[in-house]
């Protein structure tokens, strides 16, 4: 059973409390830098992302090429900046999409007792598939595009969010103020949105951060295998796939994108941990 959060009054200054924790602050700082670098890629990047230069292929890191060049003489640093755009947007889109499906499923099964058993079994069945495997199968069925990758990963991660939302909803449903609203004849959709949904946002936020991290890892894995985003589009995963062939002569081509994944995922986990400690006091003392 995942985090059951006892509804808290919403904290307006969650960000400032998060910044008060050194590890979370470090995570946020790194994430801000990475996001800015991705947004400002055309400004920061010293070269065009697909500028070929056979003369300077597989050059080691130097002042001209900070992270070296790849097999086609393209600047690795530049491509990493552009790759960050794809990897981060795919990850973020997956969080949004899976949150929508997960919230609908979780609210339904948590609030309506009759629907609980069937929806919960469906969630169990979806959780039985290993994430990468299910994503691969869905991408194979839908076609390998960035949008379909988001849909596939969104479907894969939705059940996890659904479980968290369901667990919280089960608790909130029984609270006096929800009962009072019901007794006053407040329509169910309003109760769900105004009272229940507002109070499941905390666990949703915590879980969403971890799913962001997972989605970045999964996208990298799928793109690396060649079953995700098209190899022509730079993502950290496709860059590692390219660099793999030249690992002997030019290890930097695969080293730097991999390091970018590690740093990004680690920062997301640090932020997620901080959020969990702040928003979910029941778990805070343990993990």
């Amino acid at each position: 059973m995942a985090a059951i959060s006892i509804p808290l009054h919403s904290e307006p200054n969650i960000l400032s409390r998060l910044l008060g924790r050194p590890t979370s602050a470090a995570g946020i700082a790194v994430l801000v830098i990475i996001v800015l670098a991705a947004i400002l890629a055309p400004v920061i990047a010293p070269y065009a992302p697909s500028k070929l230069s056979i003369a300077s292929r597989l050059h080691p890191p130097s002042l001209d090429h900070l992270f070296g060049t790849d097999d086609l003489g393209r600047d690795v640093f530049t491509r990493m900046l552009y790759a960050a755009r794809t990897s981060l947007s795919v990850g973020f889109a997956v969080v949004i999409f899976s949150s929508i499906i997960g919230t609908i499923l979780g609210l339904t099964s948590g609030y309506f007792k009759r629907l609980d058993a069937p929806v919960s079994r469906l969630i169990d069945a979806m959780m039985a598939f290993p994430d990468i495997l299910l994503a691969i199968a869905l991408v194979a069925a839908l076609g390998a595009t960035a949008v379909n990758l988001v849909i596939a990963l969104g479907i894969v991660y939705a059940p996890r969010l659904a479980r968290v939302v369901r667990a919280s909803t089960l608790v909130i449903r029984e609270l006096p103020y929800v009962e009072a609203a019901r007794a006053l004849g407040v329509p169910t959709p309003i109760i769900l949105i105004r009272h229940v949904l507002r109070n499941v946002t905390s666990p949703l936020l915590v879980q969403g951060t971890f799913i962001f991290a997972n989605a970045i890892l999964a996208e990298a894995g799928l793109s690396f295998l060649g079953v995700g985003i098209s190899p022509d589009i730079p993502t950290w995963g496709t860059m590692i796939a390219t660099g793999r062939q030249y690992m002997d002569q030019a290890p930097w081509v695969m080293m730097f994108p991999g390091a970018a994944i590690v740093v990004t995922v680690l920062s997301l986990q640090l932020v997620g941990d901080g959020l969990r400690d702040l928003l979910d006091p029941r778990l805070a003392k343990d993990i």
Partner: protein
Amino acid sequence: MLRSILNRLFGMIVVMALVVTIVFVIVRVTPGDPAAVMLGPDASAADIAALRSRLGLDGSILEQFGRYVLGVVQGDFGQSIFLGEPVTSALAQRAEPTFFLTVFSLLIATLIALPVGILAAYKRGSVFDQATTTIAMFAASVPSFWLGLLFIQFFAVKLGWFDTSGYGGPGASFADRLNHLVLPALALGLVSSALITRFTRASMLDVLNDDYVRTARSKGMSEWRVVLKHAFKNALIPILTVIGLTAALLISGAVVTETVFGLPGVGSLVVSAVLRRDYPVIQGALLVIAGLYVLVNFAIDMLYLAVDPRVRY
């Protein structure tokens, strides 16, 4: 007790039925005609019709579903389009590397995670605790396929301790095959140890302050007996759960790791099936792995019943 077992059994059967349904549906969400997509634009109408019937795509959707379920129940997962053999035998041939890779990774992960997690909880707040917690979080952020590539570069290419890829030639000895599993299992096991470490630490912290632990201490019992016998035993259920969960995650990791190390396992079979749009193989692999997961979960639930008399379903 019997009631709990029957309840769980019924739940498991329902979930299994849903798993079969999901696997059936996945291929049907393909936009357009999967047979036409597989054969390409130059295929004749007759060829497409023939492939449709081979894929079980002819007839109404209910007929298709009925046929599919009937086949699955009889252990018939259809024919691979490209391998020219039944999906079940293709899977069976590839099962060994995947099985051993998963088992060894889980073993490595558990052997690292249990002592580290227990000690970190015991010495809460110490340098050891902080260091291992940080390392665990770092390990959980490393893509296993990337770590695998680094291992190949360092241990296989630079030091020459292991072969860079494969599973030994045909007829390779068991020891030779095991040798090929060392690096992939290490890469996967190290990354997976993070989750188990964190959970072990957390559930040990939960019980270390409990009354019975204090009682055991005040009886003058030795520290390691208190920690291992009284505390660890009670922290075991959540740890078992997370080990089961990790086993499932490992299969996901195995898909990518097998490809990196050129292991001829189920994972690389699925990846090549996806690239060739060999739908029956993809479906069969999904079904077997998800089915195993459901069975393992059922077994873990039964284990709870045996370990903890308070558990009821």
